[in-house]
């Protein structure tokens, strides 16, 4: 997030797109509700009439996968009405003039055809955001899990750049990170393109720095993504893999393909707190200590590394991840793996990462600062991009709308979109083992508009078969007006309903993130 969570109480215009915040980030949503009570207006764009939509002043029920069209048309209206912030564009960005010309073609009427949102509502949304003193954008995987995920994010950036809604309190571009430490995993360098602290592997300076730190040559080309690695495993080119704390088999697209890929490895090492569906395929399973048993740190969605603490001894012989990796490193004869505590590891992260440079184990035990924290006396950076951008100027991107990888056809005439539910976390390895949760969420249901249930010959509460070109699953159907006509929804949390057998129609060409939010399907009564 460019701005801290506390800023969520301060915008006068909130634009939420592709985020089911009341279910996925409920505590953050309480802050938006406070802003609403204080008089803020809210626009919500989402294919489903989620609770956030009920709270909004303007709801844009976009067709799944049409976000770019909506955002381009909003930029068109802002430019047409002269609502752009000329000074901000001039002083702080590049490509503004070209972009204003680029969006001339993308009228609300054009976008209405694609998004199925009335042109007048697109106009209104653009005017509200364009006229806002403090306009803040919030998004989640509803924006990124598309073949055009990067373009969607860039389209949001265009809106913020053209209106100057960045670098000030109560504004910003704010992705809500879905997992407790997904921000930290990226910060710590567990990505194929960056060393810890987002220092690019292909940057000669940072590569030289880590070569020296780690005492060996390191590729100066970015590595492949997990998606490609699984493909290579299926093709027999990837031979050994470790998977730490991820139930890949259930959470990833194309489940059958994923299982086959993992089985094809010579060696699969799984480190987890439970014997997950993925662990069942392992050659070596290493039991990790759980949350509550582990000292360490999580970095939250607002860039704050915070201390976690062990409160109870580990179950059985389970060990902290850092110890497990150290042991493997030592057994392979690698230098620099003789760690004896989480404290030592965290302090090493701070010593190699510029954004954590001013932090230490001792300091995060007392303060929760927002990175970047460049020095020990630095107070942290709650709001990014005040006065200037870290990397020079904000860049406008001239993208076009692209259809999803698969669109509706006679064989697959219904849109499926997937997501999460309040009472379940990911593949339920944790919430599925917490007593009482099934009182509220006993099973996964396919949410279908009541009229579609009638038209498609289904029955509320009865099982149906749902199929895509990649596979089929059976699921109980629920009449639900959150779903628009022609679009159905379910979560991927329940192993009993392995919906990711169906997904995986396409991937974003840059991030290789799967288009989990769009999948044409066929539904048949059983």
């Amino acid at each position, binding site marked *: 997030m460019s701005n801290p969570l506390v800023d969520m109480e301060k915008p006068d215009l909130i634009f939420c797109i592709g985020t089911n915040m009341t279910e*996925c980030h*409920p*505590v953050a949503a309480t802050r938006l*509700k406070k802003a*609403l009570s204080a008089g803020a207006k809210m626009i919500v764009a989402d294919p489903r009439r989620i609770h956030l939509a009920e709270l909004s002043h303007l709801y844009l029920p976009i067709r799944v996968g049409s976000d770019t069209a909506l955002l381009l048309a909003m930029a068109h209206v802002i430019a047409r009405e002269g609502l752009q912030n000329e000074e901000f564009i001039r002083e702080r960005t590049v490509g503004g003039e070209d972009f204003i010309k680029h969006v001339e073609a993308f009228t609300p009427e054009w976008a209405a055809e694609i998004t199925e949102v009335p042109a007048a509502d697109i106009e209104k949304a653009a005017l509200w955001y364009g006229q806002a003193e403090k306009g803040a954008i919030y998004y989640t995987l509803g924006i990124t899990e598309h073949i055009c995920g990067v373009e969607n994010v860039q389209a949001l950036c265009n809106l913020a750049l053209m209106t100057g809604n960045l670098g000030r309190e109560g504004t910003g571009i704010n992705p809500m*990170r879905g*997992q*407790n*430490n*997904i921000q930290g*995993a*990226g910060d710590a*360098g*567990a990505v*194929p393109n960056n060393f810890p602290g987002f220092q690019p*592997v292909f940057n000669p300076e940072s590569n030289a720095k880590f070569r020296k730190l780690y005492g060996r040559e390191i590729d100066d080309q970015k*590595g492949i993504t*997990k998606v490609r*690695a699984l493909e290579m495993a299926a093709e027999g080119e*990837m*031979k*050994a*893999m*470790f*998977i*730490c*704390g*991820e139930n890949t088999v259930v959470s990833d697209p194309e489940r059958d393909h994923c299982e086959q890929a993992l089985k094809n490895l010579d*060696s699969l*090492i799984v480190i987890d707190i*439970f*014997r997950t569906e993925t662990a069942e395929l392992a050659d*070596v399973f290493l*039991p990790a200590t*759980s949350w*509550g048993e*582990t000292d*360490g*740190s999580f970095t*939250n969605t607002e860039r*704050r*590394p915070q201390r976690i603490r062990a*409160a*109870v001894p580990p*179950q*059985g012989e389970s060990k*902290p991840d850092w110890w*497990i*990796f150290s*042991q493997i490193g030592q057994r392979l004869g690698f*230098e*620099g793996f003789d760690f004896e505590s989480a404290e030592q590891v*965290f302090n090493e*992260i701070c010593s190699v990462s510029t954004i954590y440079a001013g932090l230490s184990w001792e300091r995060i035990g007392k303060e*929760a600062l927002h990175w970047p924290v460049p020095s020990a006396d630095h107070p942290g950076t709650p709001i990014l991009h005040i006065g200037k951008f870290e990397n020079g100027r904000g860049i406008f991107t001239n993208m076009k709308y692209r259809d999803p990888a698969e669109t509706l056809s006679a064989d697959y005439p219904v849109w499926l979109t997937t997501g999460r539910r*309040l009472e379940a976390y990911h593949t339920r390895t944790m*919430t599925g083992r917490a007593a*009482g949760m099934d009182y*509220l969420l006993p099973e996964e249901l396919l949410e279908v508009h009541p009229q579609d249930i009638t038209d498609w010959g289904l029955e509320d509460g009865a099982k149906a078969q749902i199929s895509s070109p990649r596979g089929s699953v059976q699921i109980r159907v629920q009449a639900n007006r959150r779903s628009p006509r022609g679009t159905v929804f379910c979560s991927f949390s329940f192993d009993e309903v392995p919906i990711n057998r169906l997904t995986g129609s396409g991937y974003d060409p840059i991030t290789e*993130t799967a288009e989990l939010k769009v999948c044409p399907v066929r539904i048949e009564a059983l």
Partner: protein
Amino acid sequence: MSQAVQTELKMQVDGTEVAFVDGETIFEITQRLDKKVPTLCYDDRLESFGACRLCVVEVEGIRNPVASCTTKATPGMEVRTGTPSLEKHRKTLTEMVVSENQNAKGPEDPIKVDPLRGFASGELAELADRYEVSGDRFQGMTSGKSHEDDENPFILRDYDRCISCYRCVRVCAEQEGDYAISVMNRGFATQITTEFNNHLRDSACTFCGQCVQVCPTGALADRKAIKSIDLPEPIVKTRSICPYCGVGCSVDMMTKGEKVVGIQPAMDGPANAGALCIKGQFAFDFIQHPDRPRRPMVRKNGELVETSWDEALDRAAAGLRDARDKHGRHSIYGIASGRAPNESAYMAQKLIRAGFGSNQIDNCSRA
């Protein structure tokens, strides 16, 4: 337009001059000064409500004591916070409140409830101790009727202990924005309830547990935590960060001996300011679930079988070494966790980069 320099605002509290900022209430000022003015309805995250009247103070020039939580300080105001007459008044009020709960059922004392019930559940008992109130001065009528038929596994609705402070109603509306809790009837017959006096599951309740944590009498209680009331060890609280979404709410893990018995929100948590959701509040018992594997395992004859750490780590290292030696270092890939701590992700990437010199590392953010 020139801006006038604002002169510092001053008032007297118990004979001492005190500076304050425009808009501060008398109660907020007494809190800053650690005056120990009692309250059963105040919560600094919520609008002042003035329900319990325990925070009354004397203000020079005003005949009757005023509720300090709803009275804003004004320059020159002279306030007395703890005169014998105020303390007598507060004692009488406490006696009346305590008498309300005499018929509370269950194994626990009507007033001195177990702290596992909720974060604020001991507040009434503390006041009863402070004013040495036993509950036998006023007897007879009690108000509030428990909702025993609501069998939800998270929130006990023991309204016989309710004193109508409205904290639960207000936290649900103002803090959560859910408006699931409402009030029916008036005066002595006031009853905290939900829409149509139904079960919480049928209301707008999201089971975030905030009502439980603010209740000053334990009338609303954490059903999962109170299962451990009979464990003999003392409650120990350990500050940590919730393991679920990326918001990073601060929590206090409550343990008795080696058992995790519950979670309470950290009221001073920077990300959450005391708020939590159903997962952070109630989904903690996966930690000590019997499904947790106790030993490392390796595949032998097609089956995963338990083994020693030594053998498992050797097998893991050998798997990586063999792949490198036979197929090159790019035949090895690592997937780090977006749920494990930073130290895990860092070591995962270090093993790949420092060990194999590649960038074949990713995490679960792509799906």
